């Protein structure tokens, strides 16, 4: 096991006692520890480097405050920068009716589950949701969405005889509108961002249904490839938001920072369990603490 961030930061910051101003030189060791902490949290290499640069720029030249130790000061700067970066952009969905939402992402990320979660949540806010089953590949994908819809009393459009996804989308949209539905969520199949044919499929679907929101559903435990995944999907369909799933696990969630930093697409929601109500708007401050292993850092601030 690696030493805890607390231990490593404590020793890295020791030399900061008694300095008047924060400088590149006197912060070097501490910033190296921060970089390692980010990398161990699966933050992308390039993003970690840039982030450390930004923190350095923000901190350099700052007078060391009398009331806190330099260590506390740096940690505060890091935490604030991270929260700011993660929280840029709004978590709100476009305020209009009807609202069309297309879900995209890798296999098993949580798109189908999140479609139902989002429908349920929005229904509480006065929307009349409908779900459109656009995954024609995964065995029983349609059954899965239908089951979730039945459970929550949300109508689901399916066409089991067609493999023509854009057409299913268009017909589903018409069907939902005819039913007076004003929140229409399109669940799509899992796909690799490099699978050109399947990526073209969602590009075509997008053209047919003109979604107001396109949400990338991503596992919070993703590794270094998270940036490529987010960037490719963003290039293909212009994402309007990211949903992080499986935050009920103990992944540090560096992928969130990576995806946000590279695409600048706001993180809007988070999934915190398998149950339909285990879903919330994204909280950047909690995520920042998680990525840094802030439990550690907080205790460090107390010790410092």
């Amino acid at each position, binding site marked *: 096991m690696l030493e805890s961030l607390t231990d490593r930061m404590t020793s890295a910051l020791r030399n900061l006692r008694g300095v008047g101003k924060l400088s590149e030189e006197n912060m070097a060791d501490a910033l190296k520890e921060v970089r390692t902490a980010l990398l161990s949290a699966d933050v992308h290499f390039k993003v970690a480097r840039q982030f450390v640069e930004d923190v350095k720029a923000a901190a350099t030249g700052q007078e060391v405050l009398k009331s806190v130790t330099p260590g506390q000061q740096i940690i505060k700067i890091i935490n604030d920068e991270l929260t700011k970066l993660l929280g840029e952009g709004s978590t709100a969905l476009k305020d209009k009716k009807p609202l069309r939402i297309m879900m995209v992402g890798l296999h098993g990320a949580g798109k189908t*589950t999140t479609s139902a979660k989002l429908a349920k949540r929005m229904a509480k806010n006065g929307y009349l949701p409908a779900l459109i089953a656009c995954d024609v590949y995964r065995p029983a994908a349609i059954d899965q969405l239908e*089951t979730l819809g039945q*459970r929550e009393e949300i109508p689901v459009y399916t066409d089991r005889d067609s493999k023509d996804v854009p057409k299913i989308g268009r017909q589903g949209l018409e069907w939902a509108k005819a039913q007076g539905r004003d929140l229409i969520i399109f669940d799509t199949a899992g796909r690799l961002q490099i699978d050109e044919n399947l990526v073209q499929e969602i590009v075509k679907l997008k053209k047919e249904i003109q979604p107001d929101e396109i949400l990338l559903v991503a596992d919070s435990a993703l590794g270094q*490839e998270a940036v490529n995944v987010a960037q490719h999907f963003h290039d293909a369909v212009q994402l309007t938001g990211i949903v992080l799933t499986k935050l009920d*696990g103990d992944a540090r969630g560096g*992928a969130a920072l990576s995806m946000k930093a590279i695409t600048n697409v706001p993180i809007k929601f988070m999934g915190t369990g*398998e149950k339909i109500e285990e879903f919330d708007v994204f909280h950047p401050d909690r995520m920042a603490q998680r990525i840094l292993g802030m439990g550690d850092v907080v205790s460090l601030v107390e010790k410092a």
Partner: protein
Amino acid sequence: KRTTPTFYKAFGKVGGVFSGKKLDQGSLDDLEEALYGADFGVETATEIMDEIQAAYKKDKSLRGQDAAVIGAAVLRRVLDGAEPPEDFLTGVNPDVICLIGVNGSGKTTTTAKLGWRFTDDGKGVTIGACDTFRAAANEQIKAWAERLDLDLISSHHGADSAAVAFDAWQAAKSRNREVLILDTAGRLHTKGNLMEELKKIRRVLQKNDPTAPHHSWLVVDGSIGSNSIEQARKFHESFGLTGLIITKLDGTSRGGALVGIYRELKLPIYFVGLGEQKEDLQPFSVDNYVNAIFGLGE
């Protein structure tokens, strides 16, 4: 017949950093970046970089290719013993293989692929549908069983998963099947009650055969980062793993987390998943993996 997707295509080369060009500080940085980019984790990436740096110190004319050879040697050393024995079935009928793992990692798809693979090798297979929890989990495994013409024992939604395991074993026994594969519900390793449910499956199976399950494989999504190590550790603690399967390596992820897991738990890696079709499952080979990562051996 079985057409195996190639590992090489699955990984491609790690950028152009392992080319014939002489190394300099810039390319060493790129190299380090590529190693991190493969999710090897800080420890392994540092170990590989240290050896490359040491060699570079001695010989400034070192080329990218030489660095690849050094990196490959380190990785091969780290992964020594990671291949399972070729003939891993115990000969007990049925040999029980239990697939477990976090949500969405690929257990059900891998169950189907394995079922097809054993059938293709002339073995009798029964599948037990022990995910009685997730929406349409039964329908999903049923669809696979029909598609591949596999024996399936399942129950209704919400049924006791351990009871399904028990029944599936009985059925496999009475039909004289060589292999019983149990697909279980996805669960995060952080959920104590769900880990207890897994232990119950084991206890109930052992009423039939005290040596079961003969194989307990953790199915890990290859695009997951360092958390997969924590996943493996926790599942191993509660269930006693005997091996790993790494899925979704047909993507751009290099699955480096398997290195981290192996480093810590020394569990053999039985198969890698390279797609969504029945034949997209390949036995793990250290050489193929290492060569693919470092763009060697072609």
